[in-house]
């Protein structure tokens, strides 16, 4: 095939312009990925001599480390609860704000503030509120109620982290779902109303299907984010009491940077990567069935 000079010239120029980005991608994304895969095959202290152990780290992870299954269970529990509570609450609030009129933007900003506030600051404030003699228990004490140990009771600690996380993350989904609601044609809702559909029928039969692309996006992003939960347990509970709030990323961080087990931490990272990939692939496989792209 004959190539035009202009096309070839543009191709080379494009390659030159793309080179810095590709170089950065190779150095900061691909290389660390490959490196972590290689490191996961070693017993690799940060200082000292690495020792090749093959798949031992993975074998230990799956068969010899009960903490891994605990942190995996905790992470899955967190992901499910956080995603469900976040999406249901975000959808309810977004719908409320959509119908609120001129006060809508004000409350939207209010709900979005925790998203842009540093997670560390939020976590520290929540820690102060949730301690045994914190604001919440002091309030309960004024009502004559003995408040529980929100962060030290293994039955309540994870719930406290989920509540804090929903408060922190709900604003993002409110904005996305709000934009989705704005995109629904009023004509459709009006037509449904003329056909005799009540408010709930209009919501479930018109609004939800039309909102499904936004909901799908929010679900995928929220689940991926929830699997990476780290700051909340790190600052509020240190993974305790026991291992009740220990998550995969916290366990990974500890193994890599506190316990000097870089090989095992890398194996954990790959386990997390595979789990998130599988769940995301499952979601995308259901996309055509669950998401309505017909405008």
């Amino acid at each position, binding site marked *: 095939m004959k190539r035009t000079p202009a096309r070839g010239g543009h191709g080379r120029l494009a390659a030159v312009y793309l080179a810095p980005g590709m170089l950065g991608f190779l150095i900061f994304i691909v290389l660390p990925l490959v490196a972590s895969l290689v490191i996961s095959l070693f017993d690799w202290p940060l200082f000292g001599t690495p020792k090749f152990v093959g798949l031992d780290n993975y074998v230990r992870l799956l068969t010899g480390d009960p903490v891994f299954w605990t942190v995996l269970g905790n992470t899955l529990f967190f992901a499910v609860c956080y995603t469900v509570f976040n999406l249901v609450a975000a959808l309810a609030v977004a719908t409320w704000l959509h119908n609120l009129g001129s006060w809508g933007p004000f409350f939207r900003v209010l709900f979005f503030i925790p998203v842009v506030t540093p997670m560390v600051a939020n976590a520290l404030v929540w820690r102060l509120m949730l301690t045994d003699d914190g604001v919440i228990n002091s309030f309960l004490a004024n009502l004559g109620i003995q408040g529980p140990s929100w962060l030290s009771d293994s039955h309540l600690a994870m719930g406290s982290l989920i509540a804090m996380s929903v408060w922190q993350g709900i604003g993002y989904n409110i904005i996305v779902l709000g934009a989705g609601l704005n995109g629904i044609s009023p004509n459709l809702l009006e037509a449904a109303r003329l056909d005799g559909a009540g408010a709930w029928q209009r919501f479930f039969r018109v609004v939800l299907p039309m909102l499904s692309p936004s909901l799908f996006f929010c679900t995928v992003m929220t689940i991926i984010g929830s699997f990476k939960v780290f700051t909340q347990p790190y600052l509020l*509970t240190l993974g305790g009491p026991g291992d009740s709030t220990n998550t995969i990323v916290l366990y990974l961080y500890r193994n890599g940077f506190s316990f000097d087990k870089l090989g095992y931490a890398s194996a954990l990272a790959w386990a997390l990567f595979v789990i998130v990939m599988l769940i995301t692939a499952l979601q995308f496989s259901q996309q055509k069935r669950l998401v309505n792209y017909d405008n």
Partner: protein
Amino acid sequence: MSINRVTGRLLTAAAVAALAAGTLSACGSSTGSSSGGGKEASSMYTWITNENDRAQWQAFVDAAKKKDPAFNLTLEGPSFNDYWTKVKTRLSSSGAPCIITTQAARAQELKDLTVPLDDMVKSNSIDVSMYNKAMIDGLTVDGTLRGIPYDAEPVVLYYNKDLLAAAGVKEPTTKYTTSQFAGDLKALTKDGVMGLAVPPGFGSGPGLPLAFANGNEPVKDGKLDLTNQGLVNDQQFAFDLVAKEKVANAPQASDGTDVPEQQFMSGKAAMIIDGPWMYDTLTTKTQGKVGIAVVPSTSGESIGMIQGSAFAIAASCKDKDAAFKNIMKITTPEVIGAVGAARGTVPSVESAVKDWAGTKPAADVAVVQALLKSGRPLVTTPSWNQVETNFTQYSGEGFRGSKTAQELLSTIMNSAK
């Protein structure tokens, strides 16, 4: 192809390459580091949790300057809690400081980061015997010395004299039994005041100092020995004080040592087990007069758990001799004594203890001196950070009575092997 187009492409490629190279070199270089090792030899990586820490390190510099006005030491580092994690990554990066702080309790853990000092000690004719023997023992790894200690601090029991007087409790001294201790704590726990303030950590007590007082240690022959019956019993005693006797609030895993210290200083707790490094803070900021006693033991004769810190040389240092000479300038008896007098750290050199004693009450000085004589270093293993981290995470279940000391210490020992 025209010359202009060639030139244009070359310029574009050169600009892109320069940009990439500039970005990479900017990322790779450290701020202001020199390549010869000279600057790094007078730089120290240490914990700087707050202004109090910074003032302490500055006190070393100021005292050393009296003998050598040209002496200087640049400082960098995170908080104490973050230090043990971050020091490993900091020293693996370029331009890392040559001098680092270590502890007898962490010498094993940091052994790959530090170099043996024996040859430099010998060639500089340093008399190591002047330093506290327990600290030197603790800083010796595989037969080699890994740091020059500046303090030797036996953990003590602080008590609020006013609260003890109000409860009719006799002040403890250099002899104190655990049965007296438990009884006193019960008597002190009333009217919103708890007998004891407790942190969630292992080394920060109260379980481990109580075990040391009874002669039980967490490491035997270089290996973790967390499940020896003496240590388990002492840790269970500490758990029971909180879970069964209710003489202290159960700590939360995320509590730093500052949380129980605040309880003590505000008068909400009558006693606390802590290091002498807190002496100035606790005696000046507590509501009420403060005294110190030995950590109680079954017999009343207490063995001190000696914690202390030292200056070491990073294995990555290019000019180790220069770094060692700087360390020697801040570890002379004069400097250590001056810092002890100014900042309250108990000197690692016996002849300088008088500087630290200064105007302190004789009873308090007697307690520290007694513990220094009987004291044993807290020697640990390379996996000690894992022990500490896991204990802090798990101890809540012990302090709330849902797990026994035997269960928790077995779990921790198995995971940290």
